[in-house]
């Protein structure tokens, strides 16, 4: 089994690591024996929803997780706005925007309070209801290893990139700045009685729905792009979109998009130059036939 501990030759200084790092059995034994010792001080405790792979990759670029953080906001949508109409359903679009902004603001404060310099792996939950829209953000606050200075809430970044993606991004000279989001809800106008009658027996595009979809998309994407520019970002990566008619109002089309705003912080983009690998695995799972006892 190849664990994460590198071979001595792979280390930048060519030095060997911990004497036991090559022997996972010795490590396991030492780890089990360590439980006899008393627990560290509560100040050292951290919480994180990152996987061990993500934490290791973060450590490799000098960052560490410190706290599981969140931000939630719900905004009301007045009764009646989903009834038939024309154009954008501005109450719903602005409720989404304000909920996203308030949830982001709260996760910023949570992060700063815990001493984090940013949040990675943010999971975004969107709940569009007839009378309210809710946004919940959950992620792990991270900081450069051992950083003591508490940042201000305005200076932390929030990103839905995984630990691995954050590492790759930083390695190529870029940094996440924050989450950008945009949403638009648009009425698909009614067809006239005559048009509906004419289309009854035809295979025909319902242009009112197609046009509503395009209108919603353009407004939402534009809003997301504007919020990226407001963060002084160069672009948005990992954009995720949700689109389609509302469950409770099929004549209304919703389109929402969010992603991580990034900016080049190095002098220029650094190519990662990935190495090509050709796996030679057979599709059969291999088992090392080690005797269970007395091996």
């Amino acid at each position, binding site marked *: *089994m190849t*664990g*994460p501990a*590198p071979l001595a030759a792979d*280390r*930048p200084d060519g030095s060997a*690591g911990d004497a036991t*790092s090559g022997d*996972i*059995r010795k*490590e*396991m*034994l*030492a*780890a*089990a024996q*360590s*439980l006899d010792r008393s*627990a560290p001080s509560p*100040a*050292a*405790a*951290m*919480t*994180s*929803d*990152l996987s*061990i792979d993500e*934490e*290791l990759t973060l*450590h*490799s670029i*000098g960052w560490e997780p410190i706290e*599981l953080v*969140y*931000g*939630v906001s*719900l*905004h*009301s949508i*007045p*009764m009646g*706005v989903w009834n038939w109409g024309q154009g954008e359903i501005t*109450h719903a679009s*602005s*409720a989404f925007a*304000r909920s996203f902004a*308030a949830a982001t603001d*709260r996760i910023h404060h949570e992060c700063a309070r815990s001493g984090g310099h940013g949040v990675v792996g943010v999971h975004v939950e969107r709940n569009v209801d007839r*009378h309210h829209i809710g946004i919940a953000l*959950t992620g792990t606050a991270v900081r450069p290893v051992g950083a003591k200075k508490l940042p201000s809430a305005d200076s932390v970044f929030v990103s839905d990139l995984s630990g691995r993606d954050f*590492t790759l991004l930083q390695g190529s000279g870029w940094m996440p700045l924050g989450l950008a989001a945009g949403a638009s809800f648009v009425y698909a106008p009614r067809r006239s009685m005559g048009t509906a009658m004419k289309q009854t027996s035809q295979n025909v595009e319902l242009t009112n729905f197609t046009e509503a979809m395009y209108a919603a998309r353009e407004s939402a994407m534009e809003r997301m792009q504007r919020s990226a520019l407001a963060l002084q970002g160069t672009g948005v990566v990992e954009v995720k979109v949700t689109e389609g008619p509302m469950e409770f109002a099929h004549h209304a089309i919703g389109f929402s998009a969010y992603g991580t705003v990034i900016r080049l912080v190095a002098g220029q983009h650094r190519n990662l*130059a*990935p*190495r*090509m*690998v050709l796996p030679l695995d057979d599709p059969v799972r291999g*088992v*090392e036939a080690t005797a*269970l006892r007395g091996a």
Partner: protein
Amino acid sequence: MDDVPGDLPEAAARRFSEGAFTSGLTVPDFAACLQMGLEPAGYVQGFCVMKWGSWQFYPGAGPYGGYGPNVAGTHGGYSESWQCPHGFVSAEHRVWGQNYEQPWVEDAWANGFTSAYERLIEEASALGAHGIVGLVDTSAPLGDLGVLEFRVQGTAVKVKDGPPPADGRPWTTYLAGQRLAKLIEAGYMPVSIAATVASVRVWASCITAYLTEGTNPGWTSQAVGAEIEQTARAQMAVRRIARERVRAQLGGDSLHGASMGTRERELGEGDADLECILRGNRVRRFKEFDPMPAPRPTVRLS
């Protein structure tokens, strides 16, 4: 085999003494465990079926019971209230609102989970295990009875040439195989799993009810499209309580690979039951971190 605890079924004791091991590990995880010096001792399980006291009084309230008697604030914990800004409107008007923690729901969940977990530990101890890996816990309503079944299962293991646990309790982790190996190599030892639930009831004020239902009677000063502050604060509080409770379980250890799941049951007119379950691996650092060099990116040709 070690002494069998008295309340373990006789059949289980017989099965444990038969010699062959059982395991819930996949073949790759099994191979990785052997390589780490972890020998499977047996597939161990714990179950508990819980029925909450409040259920019998509020049969329509779902598997976790109702909001119980109006004892808001009397159990301590989180509580916030909102006053109606309108003065007297009618006898039906919601003149106040409150968010409050529901310790009886949390206690019932904790009792069910802990009982199932302790039974799992008991089985593993009977096998003389040092730890339990690949743990899986689930809970599901049992039939239509307002009853919740807790299931905790995993593979008990012995550390080859390792000492028995100091306090006699095996360590536990949701991880197994390569992920556990990486955790150990990164310098962390699993101590136990950590899991908790937080439950908050939203008893909506008039403003919260109007905003949640999208209504505006005309004479209220509420802003159209405003934030539903009471519910938003309850959503933040239920997450904070869960995090604080897990932190209280950690001592000075850390929580790894946490999963925070929330559930909202809308009861109408802004009233809601909120629940947050937070679980993860409690781990302890046993050696200084030995950072690996920046990973080398690869592209798979397949």
